[in-house]
Every structure is written in C-alpha cells, then in structure tokens.
C-alpha cells in the first residue's frame, strides 16, 4: 500500500512539475508513527482507527485548504527504536507536512530529535512531562501529563483530608514516570507518601504488596499508577483483603474495560479522567459535551468498538494540526508551527487547548474530571 501511494505521489509530483505549479488536488500529507501492535497496541490501535476515520471524514467535507488529506502511517510494534527509523522515512521519503504519533513516551523521545532537525511540526500522543518540558520548538503533545494526573488525585485527597498515602505503581514506563511525578508533587498538596510499592505489568497477584501497605501505620489512602489489567487485579485483591481505605487510580484505567474487569470490587474507586468516558453524563452546558459525544458516536458506528480516551488523543492531534493549517492558510511548516503555538481555547476531547511558546501541551488541571465508580458506572464528581 505504501508503495502504491508513493507511486501515486511521484506521478502527482511529476504532473505538478509539468504544470509548474501545485494543483488544488495535491494532497496534504499527514505522517503517523503509532504502536498498532505489541504491548502498547491497545493505545495505538484506537489512535490509528481515529486518524483513518477523521481523514475520511475531513476529505468527504472537502479536505483542508481545499486539498485532500493523505495519511501515511507506520507501525513501530511498540519499539521506540523502530519509531525513530519510521519517522526518518516519513521525513525523508514520504516528505510529510506534519507528523502525529509516538504512541508511547519512549517512541516520542526517539522521534523528537529528528523533527527538531528536519523542522517538521510534530504532535505526540504520549503522556510524559519530559516531552514538553522544556518546550522544544517543533514538538507538541495532546494528552494530559502524568504529573497532572497525580496533582488532580492529590488535590482530591487534600479536600477529603487524606494526607498519608501509599503509592503502588507499575514498573513499566507509564507507571514509573507516574511514580516519579507523584513523588515530586506530593509535598505541594501536603501529602506524605508512606509506602512505595511496585508490581509488574503482567503480575497475577498483588496481595503481598497490599498486605504490606495495609500494615503501614497511619495510612489513609492508596494510589495506584498503572495501565491495563494490573490495576484491575490490584482492585480485586484490595477487595479480597477487605481493605477499607479509599482507593485512587490514575487516568490509565479510564476505560469501561476497567469496570468490566474489576467488577463489584471497583465500587468507590476514584480516578482522574478526560471527559470522554462520561460523554453522556456531561451537563449540556459543558463546552466539551458536543465534541466528545460526537467523537464517541462516530467511533462506535465506524468501528463497532468502544471509543477510548487514547483514540481521543489522536483526534485532538489531527484537529489541532488541521486547525493550525487553516489558520496559517498554508502547509508551510514554519507557519503551521507558529499557528499551532498560537492555538487558543481550542476545545477537543482532552479539554480546551491554550498553547504558548513555553507550553506545548496547553491543557490545564481542570481538563481532568474526577470520577468515582458507583453501581458499576462512572459518576462525575465536582
């Protein structure tokens, strides 16, 4: 497929050269490197589906700047090293106008130096703070950072008067970055971390860690930072041991799958989440109501699958990119980058984006909603 589009491109380029000017039908090329297979597939898969779906939708409504969009995507198999190679190919061979991707923070950091050198605007779909701190000229990102997740949780704990917290994190990239950020911001909210335990992403039983946490004197709440099945096992073990403390999870489990896996044990669990899982429950006055409801509906219809917040990050990336192109009035890389940096109050699935020269993510803490699981469903907390 890649080859055919390449030939098409060459032909188109030859045609352009013949006429001597770019025709209106000359496509805008959006490059993507995503982890569609491998351990991060449950992130990359909905991301790719989202990009494919919205490129189709945008093209049906006349494209961007009167030109159709063309998606050129590669699967890095959840390996950061491969992401680097594919990004190089996107820049040098495919000559894309914009790059979206880097499903994981590792992949993103492997792509970042390349786009900086080649001066191609790039929106990452990964979480770590390090991607945008310090701000790199050509690198932007859409998801909330793990630091924001920790801050949102600690803020909620502070309001509930909980100050002695046990931290249980996954020893994966996501969990360990979360652990570091949680340790860094705890003091700001007057929180003392009284335990620091870890588990492996594929571990099958965490009762040992939880028993240890249960025995820590004065512990008032437990905060789990992980993705996928691990946090669900923790939740079940938590109920098994009859621990009565409030249980907080990270945004890594903000999907219906978590409730389905953990079942009744998930009752009362609190977590920060983008608006997507609670699209139907947002008040009509919420500025995000329309965008998240539309996205959820379209994704469910097109792919016959549950929309995920991860796919939402890709939606945000593509929409920010096309919005910047429209405002720049061209696909000139420098102009698009400047327009992207000037994004103000752009409402998408993760929240309202307000970019600046020093903030290449542009989301505030309020973009995270605090949710509680009640009666097997999400409940929005204020």
């Amino acid at each position, binding site marked *: 497929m890649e080859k055919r589009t390449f030939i098409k491109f060459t032909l188109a380029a030859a045609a352009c050269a013949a006429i001597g000017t770019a025709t209106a039908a000359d496509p805008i090329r959006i490059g993507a490197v995503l982890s569609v297979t491998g351990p991060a597939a449950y992130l990359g898969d909905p991301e790719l589906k989202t990009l494919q779906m919205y490129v189709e939708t945008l093209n049906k409504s006349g494209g961007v700047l009167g030109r159709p969009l063309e998606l050129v995507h590669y699967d890095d198999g959840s390996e950061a090293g491969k992401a680097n190679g594919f990004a190089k190919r996107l820049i040098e061979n495919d000559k894309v106008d914009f790059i979206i991707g880097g499903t994981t923070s590792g992949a993103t950091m492997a792509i970042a130096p390349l786009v900086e050198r080649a001066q191609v605007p790039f929106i990452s779909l990964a979480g770590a703070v390090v991607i945008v701190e310090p701000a790199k000229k050509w690198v932007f990102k859409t998801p909330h950072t793990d630091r924001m997740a920790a801050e949102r949780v600690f803020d909620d704990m502070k309001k509930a008067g909980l100050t002695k917290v046990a931290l249980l994190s996954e020893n994966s990239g996501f969990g360990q970055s979360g652990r570091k950020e949680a340790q860094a911001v705890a003091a700001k909210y007057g929180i003392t971390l009284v335990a620091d335990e870890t588990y492996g992403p594929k571990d099958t039983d965490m009762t040992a860690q939880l028993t240890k946490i249960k025995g820590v004197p004065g512990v008032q709440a437990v905060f789990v930072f992980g993705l996928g099945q691990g946090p669900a096992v923790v939740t079940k073990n938590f109920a098994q041991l*009859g621990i009565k403390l409030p249980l907080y999870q990270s945004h890594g489990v903000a999907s219906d799958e978590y409730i389905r896996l953990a079942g009744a044990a998930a009752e009362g669990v609190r977590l920060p989440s983008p608006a997507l899982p609670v699209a139907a429950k947002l008040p009509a006055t919420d500025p995000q109501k329309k965008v998240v409801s539309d996205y959820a509906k379209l994704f469910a219809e097109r792919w016959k699958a549950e929309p995920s917040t991860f796919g939402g990050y890709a939606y945000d990336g593509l929409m920010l990119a096309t919005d910047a192109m429209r405002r720049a009035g061209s696909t000139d890389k420098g102009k698009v980058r400047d327009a992207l940096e000037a994004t103000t109050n752009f409402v998408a699935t993760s929240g309202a984006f307000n970019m600046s020269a020093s903030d290449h993510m542009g989301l505030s803490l309020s973009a995270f909603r605090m949710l509680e699981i009640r009666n097997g469903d999400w409940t929005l907390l204020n």
Partner: protein
Amino acid sequence: MLSELLQFLFSGLTVGAMYALAAVGFSLIYSASGVINFAQGEFIMLGGMSAALLVQAGVPLPLAIALAVLVAAAAGLIVEKLAIEPAGNSEVVTLVIITIGASLTLRGLAEVFLGKGNHALPAFSGEDPLVIFGATLMPQSLWVMGVTLVVVLALGLFFGRTTLGKGVLATSCNKLAAQLVGINTRFILLLAFGLSAALGAVGGILVAPMTYTSYDVGIMMGLKGFVAAALGGLGSGFGAIVGGLLLGIVEAMTAGYISSAYKDAMPFVLILLILFFLPQGLFGKKATDRV
C-alpha cells in the same frame, strides 16, 4: 504478624499453583520428546481467551470451558502436525526453535482475530474470600491448587500404569528402540502436544477469573512456567509442582518482606543457585548413557 505471613503464603501458593500448572505442560512434552515447547504459554492463553470470549458470547460456563480446552488441544495437534512433524528427525534444538515460531504465530493470530483487549471470566465459586486466621484466600485459588494436584496425580498414573504412558516414556528414552519394539512414536508426539495443550488451556481457564486474560498473557505464564519446570527438574511432574510453588512463595515473600522491586529478580537468583549445585533441577533424572 501471623496473619501477614499467612497472607504472603496464600499469595505465593496461589501464584505458585498457576506456575506449577504451566510447568506440568512443559514437563509433559519434554518427557515425550526432549523438546522444550516455547508455545506452551500460548496454549495457556488460548484456553483462557477462548473461554472468556465464549462466555461473553452467551455460552454457559461449563460448556465454554469444555470448548476452550478442545480449541487449545486442536491448536496443539495442528502445531505438531504442521510444524513439528514435517521437521521429522531434526535436532532437538531445531524443534525448540520451531516452537518459538509457533508461539509467535499463535500469539499473532490471537491478536488479530481475538482482539487486543483484556477479558475476565466469572469465578467458579463466587467472589467471597475465605478468611483463615485473619488472612484471606479466594475460592478460585483452591480451584487452581486442587486441579493442579489432580492433574499431576492423573499424569502420574498415566505414566506409571498405562501402556500408552509407558510408551511416551520409552519414546523419550530412545526413539529408535521404541520404534523397534512397535511403539508408534509419531503418534506419541502428537498425543503429547495435544495433551499438554489441553493441560495448558485448563490452567489458562482456571487463572482467568483472578488474573484476567489477553492475547499476550502467554509470554509471562510461559516464562514463569519454564522457570518452574527447570527449577523442579524438567520431565518430572512432582518437580513441576514443587518448582512452581517454590517460585510463587519466594516471589510473594520477597514482595512482602524485602521489597516488591526485587520480586522478579529473586526467582532468577534462586534458579541460578539451584542449577549451579543441581544442574538437573531439584527432582530431575540424571541423564545416563548406556553403552
């Protein structure tokens, strides 16, 4: 204090029984062919995934379990027929590498056709934990331990008391001699793959209510099962159980009393020590060459 120790022990026994069940599958194929089957983890995955998806589709649990075991056994037979048998009399190392390929293929197929999500299976006897001296144990853990015990006893009888079982042992001792006394060694190998795939599936199904299952769950279960089998001595059913339980308990105690950060390192330290002093594992047979 006692309740804590007991809780760590329960945790270790639960996880250990899972490892033991995975290890038994490794031992079975090793007994029949001298091959370490790295696709064993995928059989475990296939069992759990098939059962979970069938239950989600509305099939009653007992039927779903039976069907899932059949699916995995069929996969085992197909792997043997299409990948192992054509390699015929190749070196054991070649066959081992073929099983790695089979494992990647099975995992890839599951990823494409069964999806990338995590799935749960309802617990067989409810979700209310049993409280024993202040420590808690899930009824599902008893299922895992009980079935592991039954499986090992049944295999013991099979190898010790039946002609077919003795045929398997004979094939592993000396393939040529076994053929000469009229044992259909090709059938024996097929049987071993089918049986160990079915056993793997049983393990995958039993643990699915506690640990959830997904297309890539076989990597971890396969690895830990292999470590348990090597620890106990490859080819020994009793060794597989001891190896599995030892591994599980060491992990749980490390997480409980030292630090969860070292939990995954301890078993490997253990296996290095044991294999250094007892290269055949705890209960492995010493290889003897008769002239």
